[in-house]
């Protein structure tokens, strides 16, 4: 796999993250599958911390309490789906708006997701990444990461009419 040039950071598990020259996260490192699994927990955290987000997941079975959500296989699988969507944004950083056009239509017209929820998920993701990275998640890294997520959220909102 390609490594982007730039600063190498290590998280608590010794997995390598690379920051490209635009200072946005690249998830393309082959060492990061463990990290990705841990970070897919951002989605279950969102369902627990903002329980109204569960409204979109009626088919997921038992979401009754934190324990049920944490052990629900459909929740875990969906966390990975969301992450692969984010990976698409990372790989197309120069035009996230266009890359996400179809996804935006999907969320608006088929899934009928209130776009305010995108920000809630972005906040949960930031917190889970912070927990995983530890002190390596500095002010500057957080600023770059949140800027990236803001573009992702805005691109997802774009096709709502």
């Amino acid at each position, binding site marked *: 796999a390609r490594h982007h040039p730039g600063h190498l950071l290590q998280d608590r598990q010794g997995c390598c993250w690379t920051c490209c020259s635009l200072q946005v996260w690249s998830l393309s490192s082959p060492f990061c599958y463990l990290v990705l699994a841990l970070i897919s927990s951002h989605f279950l*955290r969102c369902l627990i911390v903002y329980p109204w987000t569960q409204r979109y997941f009626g088919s997921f079975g038992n979401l009754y309490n934190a324990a049920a959500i944490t052990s629900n296989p459909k929740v875990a699988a969906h966390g990975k789906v969301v992450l692969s969507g984010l990976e698409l944004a990372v790989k197309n950083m120069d035009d996230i708006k266009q890359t996400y056009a179809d996804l935006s239509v999907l969320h608006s017209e088929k899934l009928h997701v209130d776009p305010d929820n995108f920000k809630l998920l972005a906040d949960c993701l930031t917190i889970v990444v*912070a*927990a995983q990275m530890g002190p390596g998640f500095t002010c500057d890294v957080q600023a770059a990461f949140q800027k990236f997520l803001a573009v992702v959220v805005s691109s997802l909102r774009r096709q709502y009419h």
Partner: protein
Amino acid sequence: MTFGSAKDKEVVKAFWTKLAPKADDVGADALSRMLAVYPQTKTYFAHWKDLSPGSAPVKKHGKTVMGGVADAVGKIDDLTAGLLDLSELHAFTLRVDPANFKILSHNILVVLAIVFPNEFTPEVHVALDKFLGALSRALAEKYR
């Protein structure tokens, strides 16, 4: 303003005992991140000489802010009454737009996730998020 269930209060108070010894550092880091990630918040501190992460004014003010949070934990059973003076200060003297309370709360949670990765479980996260939300509403009480 009533905040949460008995369980929520228990969780917040228990977590606070772990947090208290590191409160000053948490406050400084949260404030540093707020200023860096949300540059519009710098407008409230234009009178500081140094707004960079971990600077002296940032450290001092982080301590002040966490002192307020500590106070709120002690008054968790009635935040509105307990934070009346602080609310008047923010409403009439500081005139901070209450939207910024949510921004600072988010950054406090980010720092807690970094400093307490194992203890900051989803259950603790939701209780603290609710608490900081209630604290923010109590602070905004006197605005109008």
